[in-house]
């Protein structure tokens, strides 16, 4: 078992459009260590979501993914993995949490059935009763107060925060070593965001999982990630430990990003 769970080198994504090819991701290097949360931060259009979709094999056919390597520890080369086989990797080896939980949940299946389908799709031999027990325990683990009630219900009956908890429970059911989350708390209330991020970082820490966390929210990165990669126009402009990059940014763009967050001190200066 290596200390690096995910090792990506020289990732490129070229997207064919009617107006020519867009080089959306241009040579991105990143690696995620065991038990670590790596943050990927940048503004809309910087290529951060395209980067993780490239890693997960979730891009449409008009996107061409290239790399020197995309290595998942304990599995091997993701780049050489055919599309069909990637379906087994996602869920079993990599759990994915998207921004909109309602897009991840099936609106016409009960929550209970979604846990059952997940396990069936990945060849886990479980009966309906056993699946319900597993699901109950998973929901309990993500802080849902009344799991039985949620299991019998449907996605539309859940609040945004509850739905995201269900998605996190689903994403971790098959115990993947790596979680990838794309703006998991964007659009949620601040108090719910704090709860969900506390939950996610607890899940990573308690079971020595690893996480690739994509967000535009510098507060989320500063408070929960150990290392950070800053992206601009499809490239990594700065990377390093959060304590260094966020406290003493070297690249001009990182400085600009950090300075655009309203700061407490400025206000107190004005009123003093």
């Amino acid at each position: 078992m290596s200390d690096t769970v995910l090792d990506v080198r020289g990732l490129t994504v070229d997207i064919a459009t009617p107006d020519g090819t867009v080089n959306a991701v241009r040579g991105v290097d990143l690696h995620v260590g065991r038990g670590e949360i790596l943050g990927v931060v940048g503004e809309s259009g910087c290529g951060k979501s395209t980067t993780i979709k490239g890693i997960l094999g979730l891009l449409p056919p008009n996107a061409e993914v290239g790399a020197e390597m995309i290595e998942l520890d304990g599995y091997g080369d993701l780049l050489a993995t055919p599309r069909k086989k990637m379906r087994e990797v996602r869920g079993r080896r990599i759990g994915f949490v998207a921004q909109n939980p309602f897009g991840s949940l099936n609106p016409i299946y009960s929550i209970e059935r979604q846990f059952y389908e997940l396990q069936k799709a990945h060849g886990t031999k479980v009966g309906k009763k056993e699946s319900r027990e597993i699901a109950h325990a998973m929901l309990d683990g993500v802080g849902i107060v009344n799991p039985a009630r949620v299991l019998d219900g449907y996605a539309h009956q859940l609040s945004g925060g509850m739905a995201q908890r269900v998605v996190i429970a689903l994403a971790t059911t098959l115990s993947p070593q790596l979680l990838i989350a794309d703006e998991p708390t964007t659009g949620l209330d601040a108090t719910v965001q704090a709860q969900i991020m506390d939950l996610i970082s607890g899940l990573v820490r308690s079971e020595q999982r690893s996480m690739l966390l994509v967000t535009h929210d510098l507060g989320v990165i500063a408070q929960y990630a150990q290392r950070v990669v800053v992206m601009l126009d499809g490239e990594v402009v700065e990377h390093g430990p959060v304590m260094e990059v966020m406290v003493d940014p070297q690249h001009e763009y990182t400085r600009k990003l950090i300075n655009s967050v309203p700061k407490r001190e400025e206000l107190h200066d004005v009123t003093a």
Partner: protein
Amino acid sequence: MSLLEVENACKTFASRQRGGDPVQALRGVSLQVEAGETLAIIGESGSGKSTLGRAVLRLLELDEGSVRMDGVDLAGLSPSELRAKRAEMQIVFQEPYESLNPRMSIGSIVAEPLQIHRKGLGAAQIRKLVIEVLERVGLPAKVATRLPGELSGGQQQRVGVARAVVSEPKFVVLDEPTSSLDLSIRAQILELLAQLQADLGLAYLFVSHDMHTVEKVSDRIAVMYLGEIVETAPTVDLFRSPQHPYTQTLLSARLSADPREKHAYRAYEGDASVRATPPQQAPA
């Protein structure tokens, strides 16, 4: 007398689900906004903050209570009197693109309030005022002929701001005006709003869910929870010594972009997010 006075505002909506309980969006809200100041309304989804923002402009009718602008009760105005009063009170919406007619040029969008509120103006005067206000919000005159879809999100929101201030209002409701914008664009729009306030003496009711933003822009803050204002205080005091337990929870949920400032989230007993049914009232 304050510029805006809201007294005991109440509004209940019927449930969207058949047989569901009605939603009490406002339960006796009272507040004042002084000329030239920014009062922030902070709250989370379902707290009633957007309902309040619309009610103070009489974009929706209250069940109970009153809203007075310059001492005039808005509920007592006839439709034509209300329309005239609206020159003084405007709104900027959260989604810039959704709030602009996609088939109207930027110039006609910004000219519309002038055509409604200042009927005596000729076409040339209107054109001149439109160009002036576009420049004031940092847009080149040439965008007047463009359509909203041709502009970036930040530029679209500048158009929304131009439309709100062109009729020379005293009071503007800002309903999450920067929530859908990227960080660096957000800072620019906030700067623009502050500049306009200084130049034109505007009062703002700034509706937001973002503590970082309201801390920066507001003179006073009112905290809403489940249709009630649980606490109102000058911004500095509220951040220094929050009194209500819900305010304390909101503050503890802020995630500082400085990793040296560690946050410790403290849950609130009335927390609606993990409960099967939200509490009906804020615990005291």
